[in-house]
């Protein structure tokens, strides 16, 4: 229906309960979804498109949503939507569902200016992050950059929470080793 009350072709009528559930559980998560979508797509326009598609899919499924853990539910939809979009765009990525292993190399060479000691520390961390293998970098981006919990990260990646923890632990260890080698890790005097 449009605002005048007439049925709009191709659009589904919405019940008041669907609308209320969607507004209550889905709309407040848009910012988090956008952050995660950025991490997955590495592109602002693609990230916005991905969130739009996720909103549509979430609305279609809202009547089956039990009201528990909306963020985890939405992140699962977002992840599946991302995988499907990649498959449509690049069928060769069927064997690489995350579809980003190649994109890693694009940012590995990213150069970061360091104008002060703090900037040097931050730049070293950005370099270390770019050099991590894809599964490790992805976990760090979701937990430390996007601010997700272990459980939410596990939903996005479709792996057990234990895998998230072990990857995160190893990834941070590598970042720390790099800081050590660069003489930038805090030391006792």
């Amino acid at each position: 229906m449009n605002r005048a009350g007439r049925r709009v072709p191709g659009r589904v009528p919405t019940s008041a309960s669907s609308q209320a559930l969607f507004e209550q559980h889905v709309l407040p998560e848009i910012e988090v979804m956008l952050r995660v979508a950025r991490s997955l797509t590495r592109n602002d326009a693609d990230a916005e498109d991905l969130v739009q598609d996720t909103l549509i899919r979430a609305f279609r499924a809202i009547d089956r949503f039990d009201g528990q853990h909306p963020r985890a539910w939405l992140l699962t939809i977002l992840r599946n939507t991302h995988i499907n979009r990649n498959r449509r765009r690049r069928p060769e990525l069927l064997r690489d569902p995350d579809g980003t292993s190649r994109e890693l190399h694009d940012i590995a060479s990213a150069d970061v200016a360091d104008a002060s000691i703090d900037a040097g520390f931050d730049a070293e961390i950005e370099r270390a992050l770019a050099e991590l293998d894809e599964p490790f970098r992805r976990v760090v981006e979701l937990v430390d950059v996007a601010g997700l919990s272990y459980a939410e990260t596990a939903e996005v990646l479709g792996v057990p929470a234990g895998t998230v923890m072990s990857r995160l632990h190893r990834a941070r260890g590598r970042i720390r080793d790099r800081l050590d080698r660069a003489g930038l890790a805090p030391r006792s005097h």
Partner: protein
Amino acid sequence: MKMSWRDRFRPTGRRPMTCEEVGTWLQHYLDHELDGRRSGRLAAHLEDCKRCGLEAETYERIKHSLADTRPASPDDAITRLREFGERIARGEEPVQT
């Protein structure tokens, strides 16, 4: 750090953690993924052990630095998506495949 004789006789659930235990749980602690009791025991250890305190400080700095790389979500993208979501809720956007 050596455990004091007093801590040796405390129930495990109440004494400060050992360095080895801190090594196991530090990342969870920094990510706020540790339960209250363990968190308290770990924090008690960090207060007394310089080496573990320094380790925690290093990882905390790494976490903060990574969080600072978070791109600010542009308000206009969020506004557009929110308006899109509201139109979906009102049935004004096509949502069928």
